[in-house]
């Protein structure tokens, strides 16, 4: 028996060696340069003094591994966890389908201005200045920073801005085509450093909404001398060497990670806008295709100091991280709710054109079924997250809701009130009756209460909402399927859990989501964040009057309060929660993360947002 | 002359859930070199058990519980497991019952012969072992080319010959052939039996032929031993058995054979053989025996030698001793 046991063991050993050998072999094809070197070097090593090999080997291995890349110690490397889904090599911001800035490309591209939300500060960048040159907001003059240049040494000029704007105007596949089409009359380069934009109508918010990069909105400037040369910029991939103005360059990109190294000749340092960043290398570790999956592994990696930060997490997970590693902090330090307010408060949206949701009594009844105190208590451990507004309470908006006008409306409409009895009365008035299963029914049909949501980000709140609605007699259930989004777009019956990414400073952008002009008819596609298909001429008139007014105009405030009244009166959607970004910041290697106590560059702390560049370039190496 | 095979009081039991089954109880035999013994009995009478016990191949839940098997001057029951491995094929050999399936289908015949030699004598060279094997094949009237063939390429008779060739590879003193011709057609049966006969004569080995074909026995063996429920009932020469069986069971057995006298009439033995687990008391044959008396139901008769040297286990003849 011993003999065959040995035979078996040796077979096992052989096979496990085969495993080692054949696992990564394919990498040879992906990085041929490295492969060539690797075959040469070990041979040399073997000849040279085998005795010392053992001690020398690790060092040499590292060198060898970095054959194509220079070696950067962990202390100078920032490791970020994110789900990278875009195809390898796509760096061109105009490639379609786009939306690659969240996956590390934000470190490549820069805007005219940044907006730092927590400092409430507009930060000039590629432009030295940008202002409306006519009082009625019909002309905008942009002065470029003369030092700015692309990574290939070509200066960034007014021509690039004109190219970028005109591209948006002409190409309907680009995301801001709609805005440019609506507002912009013409774009003109007065000289190398000056651009004048003429608007078709007053555009008091265009500069902020479109030209400044913040959160996930705004446009970066693209190089005219590169994209102007390609046949079809929508299909131009860009690859790793596409000239860009940002501080980092992608040096390695595979399915596991994207590695970006600091460009020593970054113009912004020369321009004196910023010190040379401490972060010499960014490793964006791919967490997998689905946002929000396996987050416990991500959390553990942060606890283990393997990662410095990752995408935002559910409250419990962040709490557990903080308990397990004292070097980790969050925007709110060690205190609940651990995060900062994102611009994406979530509502339960319904299609207001579709029975029974077209009946305001039904919508009000549903609102009365949501127990926002229980949500705070159960899902968010007592943090005040549950919400009654379609916008985040950033300072400007907090001031707005604190105004006596809005407070009076709250007292009148009690949007937060949980009252199943009132809900029952409303439903009975609307002609519904409870059936044998305890569900509201009319003409033999229950309310199709499927909540379309997104598992990675809604798996904590949606099941709770389902139960609340069920307990109240609505036939609720969950759909976390891939068709959830499409159901919203198509206006299928049911509820849609979705956010409002719109207002940051004043309520206009959020309120404008319900403008009748977006009220796509049944059977057509609703634009993003316009799921309610609300159509009310009274409301539209208010909004139209607001459009050309500056936010600090007293009339603007008056009109905004009127619109808010309609929002609550008609229950256009059912606001559920403020959206928090709970991002763990590991301070073992890096400090100066943007937090409540330390604004850093004043941006929010999401490294994946457009302002991620500000987060990373302001990090400081931790002093051991 | 000293017998080449001596079996003394061999006892085998199987232990089952329902209790102990005595599959072989006190079998004793002696065989001289060159002697041919036929071992007969109904199915389940313990023939194969006896053969396996001689090879010391009884497996759990069976157990050899007593007695001795002496080949030449070696008592097999005292050997260690390793010594016994060497003894098989070298001193005592077994030619299996189901020759159709007794050869490994995925190994060449030669390889199956060589590994047998190798297991006993590692000193031989490969060529020597091949040569030995092919000689052995020739001695059973097979072509030397069979060495390179697979079992499925051979006919039934050829396979049986291969088994014989393997059995006599190391020129054993005792050969046990367990129904070597079952499943063969009559002509082939005869050829195979003749081969065994010739081989045995050349080797001068003693042979035990197991089977229930009395006709075949009559032609090839010198002596016959009758087994019933694991007990030897009678041992005598072939001639005596066919002309004058003594034990009532042997008589019934002979009577049940088709012959010219009773053609067309089938004489079965009345009743069924009892299950080993529930053997009747006394003589195990008594429930089926026409001559049973009081003593038969209580006392087990012993195998005793009669005047003419025959061995019979029956109370009818106890007085004769």
């Amino acid at each position: 028996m011993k003999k065959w046991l040995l035979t078996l063991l040796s077979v096992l050993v052989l096979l496990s060696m085969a495993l080692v050998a054949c696992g990564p072999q394919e990498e040879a094809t992906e990085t041929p340069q490295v492969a060539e070197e690797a075959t040469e070097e070990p041979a040399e090593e073997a000849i040279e003094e085998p005795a010392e090999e053992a001690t020398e080997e690790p060092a040499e291995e590292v060198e060898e591994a970095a054959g194509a890349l220079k070696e950067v110690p962990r202390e100078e490397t920032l490791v970020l966890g994110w789900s990278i889904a875009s195809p390898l090599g796509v760096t061109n911001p105009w490639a379609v389908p786009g939306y690659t800035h969240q996956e590390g490309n934000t470190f490549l591209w820069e805007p005219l201005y940044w907006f730092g939300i927590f400092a409430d500060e507009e930060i000039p960048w590629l432009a030295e200045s940008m202002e409306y040159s006519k009082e009625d907001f019909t002309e905008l003059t942009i002065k470029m920073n003369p030092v700015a240049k692309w990574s290939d040494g070509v200066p960034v000029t007014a021509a690039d801005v004109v190219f970028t704007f005109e591209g948006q105007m002409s190409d309907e596949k680009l995301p801001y085509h709609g805005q440019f089409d609506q507002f912009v009359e013409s774009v003109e380069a007065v000289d190398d450093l000056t651009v004048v934009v003429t608007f078709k109508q007053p555009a008091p918010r265009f500069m902020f909404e479109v030209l400044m990069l913040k959160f996930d909105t705004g446009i970066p400037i693209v190089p005219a001398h590169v994209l102007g040369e390609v046949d079809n910029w929508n299909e131009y991939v860009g690859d790793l060497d596409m000239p860009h103005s940002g501080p980092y360059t992608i040096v390695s990109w595979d399915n596991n990670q994207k590695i970006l190294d600091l460009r020593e000749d970054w113009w912004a340092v020369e321009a004196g806008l910023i010190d040379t960043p401490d972060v010499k290398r960014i490793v964006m570790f791919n967490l997998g295709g689905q946002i929000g999956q396996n987050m416990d592994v991500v959390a553990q990696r942060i606890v283990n100091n393997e990662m410095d930060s990752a995408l935002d997490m559910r409250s419990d997970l962040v709490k557990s991280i903080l308990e397990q590693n004292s070097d980790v902090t969050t925007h709110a330090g060690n205190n609940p709710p651990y995060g900062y307010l994102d611009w994406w408060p979530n509502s339960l949206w319904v299609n207001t054109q579709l029975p029974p949701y077209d009946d305001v009594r039904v919508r009000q009844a549903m609102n009365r079924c949501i127990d926002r105190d229980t949500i705070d208590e159960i899902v968010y451990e007592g943090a005040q997250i549950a919400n009654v507004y379609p916008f985040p309470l950033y300072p400007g908006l907090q001031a707005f809701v604190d105004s006596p006008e809005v407070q009076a409306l709250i007292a009148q409409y009690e949007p937060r009130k949980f009252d199943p009895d009132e809900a029952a009365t409303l439903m009975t008035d609307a002609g519904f009756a409870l059936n044998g299963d305890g569900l509201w029914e009319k003409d033999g049909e229950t309310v199709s209460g499927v909540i379309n949501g997104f598992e990675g980000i809604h798996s904590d709140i949606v099941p709770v909402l389902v139960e609340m609605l069920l307990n109240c007699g609505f036939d609720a259930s969950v759909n976390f399927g891939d068709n959830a989004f499409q159901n919203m777009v198509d206006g299928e019956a049911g509820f849609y859990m979705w956010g409002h990414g719109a207002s940051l400073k004043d309520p206009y952008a959020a309120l404008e989501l319900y403008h009748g002009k977006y009220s796509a008819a049944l059977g057509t596609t609703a634009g993003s964040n316009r799921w309610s298909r609300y159509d009310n001429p009274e409301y539209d008139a208010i909004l139209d009057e607001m459009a050309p007014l500056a936010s600090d105009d007293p009339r603007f405030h008056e009109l905004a309060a009127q619109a808010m009244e309609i929002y609550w009166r008609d229950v256009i959607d059912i606001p559920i929660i403020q959206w928090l970004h709970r991002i763990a910041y590991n301070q073992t290697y890096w400090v100066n993360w943007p937090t409540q106590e330390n604004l850093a560059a004043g941006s929010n702390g999401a490294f994946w947002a457009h302002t991620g560049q500000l987060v990373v370039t302001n990090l400081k190496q931790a002093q051991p | 002359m000293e017998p080449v095979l001596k079996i003394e009081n061999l006892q085998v039991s199987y232990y089952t859930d329902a209790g102990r089954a005595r599959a072989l109880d006190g079998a004793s035999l002696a065989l001289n070199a060159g002697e041919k013994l036929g071992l007969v009995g109904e199915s389940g009478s313990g023939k194969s058990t006896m053969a396996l016990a001689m090879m010391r191949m009884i497996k759990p839940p069976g157990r050899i519980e007593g007695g001795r098997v002496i080949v030449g001057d070696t008592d097999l029951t005292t050997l260690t497991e390793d010594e016994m491995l060497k003894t098989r094929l070298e001193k005592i050999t077994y030619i299996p019952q189901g020759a159709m399936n007794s050869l490994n289908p995925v190994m060449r015949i030669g390889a199956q012969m060589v590994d047998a030699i190798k297991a006993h004598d590692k000193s031989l060279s490969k060529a020597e072992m091949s040569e030995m094997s092919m000689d052995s094949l020739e001695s059973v009237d097979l072509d030397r080319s069979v060495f390179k063939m697979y079992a499925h390429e051979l006919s039934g008779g050829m396979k049986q010959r291969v088994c014989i060739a393997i059995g006599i590879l190391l020129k054993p003193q005792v050969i046990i052939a367990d129904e070597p011709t079952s499943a063969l057609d009559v002509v082939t049966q005869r050829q195979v039996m003749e081969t065994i006969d010739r081989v045995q004569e050349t080797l001068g080995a003693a042979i035990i032929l197991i089977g229930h074909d009395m006709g075949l026995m009559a032609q090839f063996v010198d002596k016959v031993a009758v087994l019933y429920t694991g007990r030897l009932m009678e041992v005598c020469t072939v001639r005596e058995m066919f002309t004058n069986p003594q034990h009532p069971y042997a008589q019934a057995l002979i009577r049940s054979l088709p012959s010219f006298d009773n053609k067309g009439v089938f004489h079965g033995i009345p009743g069924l053989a009892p299950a080993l687990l529930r053997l009747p008391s006394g003589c195990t044959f008594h429930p089926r025996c026409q001559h049973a008396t009081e003593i038969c139901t209580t006392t087990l008769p012993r195998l005793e030698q009669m005047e003419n040297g025959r061995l019979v286990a029956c109370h009818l003849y106890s007085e004769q001793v």
Partner: protein
Amino acid sequence: MSIRKIIERLLFLVVVIWTASTITFFIPRISSRNPIRERFGQLARTGGFSPDDLEIIIESYNQKFGLDKPLWEQYADYIGSIARLDLGVSLYQYPKTVSELIQEAIPWTLGLLVVTTILSFIIGNVLGAVAAWPRAPRWLRSIATPFILFMGVPPVLLAVFLLFFVAFRLKALPLGGAYSIGVVPNQSLKFYLDVLRHQLLPALALIFGTVGGWVLSMRGMGVTIQGEDYVLFAEHKGLSGFTIFRDYYLRNALLPQVTGFALALGNMVTSGIVIEQLFGLPGIGTVLYNAIKANDYLVIYGVVLFITIAIATLMVLVELLYPLIDPRIRE
């Protein structure tokens, strides 16, 4: 082995591929979902797309992917492209082709699934054979029992618990990923060992979760074989236990098992999908998992087809090569 048989088997292969492609083509079309709309709907999160623009983009892509053609035409195109070994383009990772995705992923899957299937096959069959071998010592025979019990543990469940205990609690092995963060793939021994360390837990989960099946079937087979006359005769020949075990018993008992190997690989894929995803390994399983989640239907088709073809080919190959190990089937 005759040419005729080879042609017959190849025809069988073609029929299998055709069946699989037909199934994968028609089933997703039962539903009215439009993956392109869904994909662009997700993109619309950026905020800037107007509804009209979105419709225009969707329309142009529908045309591009032929979704506006009648069903039978789409089917014909699809079968045609399969015949040209063109599996189409990923919607989610456009312009990446499905073949490229598979190519990138397949080495990892080969490294994990195939090696674990082989290991599981070897360990399971040896243990199963030993378990049925009456002459093996009792303790050795009883080793197989826990493995049989592991049959009741889905590999994914095992993976979850292994991940927790070994990686989270003991911190003995990495939490996932194909290799350490920040390491660039290269040909050094260090890199290989790093990869091996990362593959260990998923491999363990897969092996432990699947060994039981082999143990069980081999045990059944072994019981049958050890009663065969040739094994008994081999004992009568005075062969040593090891020789009988290896040449007479194991060799014969293994034959029917070999034919099950290809199918076992198919079953391994089932667990592999989730396990690769769970450990963040960039293999075929992860590609498929993500495609399922994103309803990237061309990738789903492509991967399902690819796996089917691989398994069917392996089956046919095993069948054609089988005579090499079983002389009875030759000529």
